[in-house]
């Protein structure tokens, strides 16, 4: 009897500790998701234009899940200390709902990452960059974003300047191939924003044009955000799983 009493005390202590950790992780998850949502990197308009901004959906869910985890962990601590069956049952059920939501958020973030291949951006860039009659604001945004991206990162196109040679594009229909084998922003520009050597740029002499593609510069921050949300959520859920199992065992051991 005393031994099982001790076991239960130990279990109590473990559950309190587990809930404390869940509470802290909930706060951390909220903070991380607020960072992702409020700090869109430069390529955000491109993501919005591809209509696959699932990462932001996942981050918004993550904010609320984090707060819920924090609140529920406090409820859990109280329930464990008071050994109240009702409180703990409420705790378990609400935790399961939160578990399901966080699972959805984590899977959404991971799936969204897989769908953002270079070809998606390539097609969007060729269709919309410098479109002569922009349909709506988002076409203008795409052009401006690409210009910014190419200027700041000293890159050209998605895979390289040959993107404009290998495929037809909206840009090509308004700019002749002989004068503009690739857009002027792909040239090395001086302080005034003019090409340092226009002929060198048109020929493709290394040093006068940017030869590498922008995909790496673009996908780096997006990947970091998405995998951060996905994997941190996964880690929290693994811990929560253990705590919930322990709580269920504890609940079944409480005298009614």
């Amino acid at each position, binding site marked *: *009897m005393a031994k*099982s*009493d001790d076991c*239960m005390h130990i279990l109590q202590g473990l559950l309190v500790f587990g809930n404390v950790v869940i509470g802290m992780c909930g706060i951390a998850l909220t903070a991380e998701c607020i960072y992702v949502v409020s700090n869109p990197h430069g390529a955000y308009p491109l993501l919005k234009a591809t209509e696959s901004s699932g990462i932001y959906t996942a981050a918004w869910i993550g904010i609320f899940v984090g707060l819920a985890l924090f609140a529920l962990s406090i409820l859990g601590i109280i329930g464990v200390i008071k*050994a109240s069956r009702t409180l703990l049952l409420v705790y*378990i*059920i609400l935790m*399961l709902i939160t*578990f*399901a939501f966080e*699972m959805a958020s*984590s*899977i959404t973030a*991971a*799936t969204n*990452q*897989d*769908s953002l*291949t270079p*070809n*998606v951006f*390539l*097609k969007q860039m*060729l*269709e919309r960059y410098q479109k002569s009659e922009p349909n709506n604001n988002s076409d203008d945004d795409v052009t401006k974003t690409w210009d910014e991206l190419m200027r700041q990162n000293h890159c050209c196109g998605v895979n390289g*300047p*040959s993107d404009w*040679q*290998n*495929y*037809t*594009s909206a840009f*090509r229909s308004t700019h*002749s*191939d*002989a*004068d503009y*084998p690739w857009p002027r922003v792909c040239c090395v520009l001086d302080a005034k924003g003019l090409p340092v050597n226009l*002929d060198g740029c*048109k*020929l*493709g*002499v*290394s040093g006068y044009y940017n*030869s590498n593609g922008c995909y790496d510069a673009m996908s780096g921050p997006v990947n970091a955000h998405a*995998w951060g949300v*996905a994997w941190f959520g*996964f880690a929290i*859920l*693994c811990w929560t*799983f253990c705590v*919930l*199992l322990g709580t*269920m065992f504890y*609940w*079944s*051991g*409480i*005298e*009614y």
Partner: protein
Amino acid sequence: MWADGDHRRLPGDAGQLPHSRPRHRGARTMIPLLLLLLPAAHGIVELGTIPALTQDRLEGVTTATTFVLEQPRCIFGNFSNAVIWLVVALDKDASAFNNSAEPGTPETAFQSFPDTVSAYMTLNATLASYPCPKPAGDITVLRVGSETSCATDVSRPTCNGPLPGPGPYWVKFLALEGSVPVAETAWSERITLRTAKPLSSISTAGSGHSAGMIAITAILSILLAILLAALVAMLFSCGSDSCGSSTFSKPESVSVQRYNTHHVYDQAAARL
């Protein structure tokens, strides 16, 4: 280069061959001499150089409407008075080009190429533009197709305009003194330009699911299933008070009341 219609005869052989009439010696030497003079009268020196695309690693060696050639340096060394022209022809018409065609005429105008004109002449330069030897480290190239301003201007038949299609094209250099061709290079290899694939051919289908995403989905689904099963088991087996009756007791404040059956001890202490 030149050959007798007959076998070659050396002087002195005449007597040994049967059925041959001895010919006058002078006549025999006249024919080779005449034949030797003929190319000099024509005037075209055929240089064996083959014009080629530039060896430098440039991104724009060929684009959809332009290509980049090596400059003809150290080739036309003896012809300091000549003007060197570039002849561009489509693959099938190259052999039909007549060297005596004059540049700047409607027969060689860029604007009519390739509809009515089989080859056009452009990029004229004197030998001074191609100094020999070539300074090391310099990029010496000719960009064919770079002038867009005169592409439809018929008053500029020697325009270096953008090429009208992917080719394939043959080029050669021709040196003219006045309007007389004096030297030419051989025809180049076929030059084919880039063709742009249509935009719709880019497939944006996802590359499948990465290992990470599959791991997350699978593991979390299993965990959720286990939790739900445990919840169901917990509720069904412990719905009544059948569990936990002997294992744990609530930490309520238990007050133990002590009952003294007699007040003996107090009175005894008070008496003492």
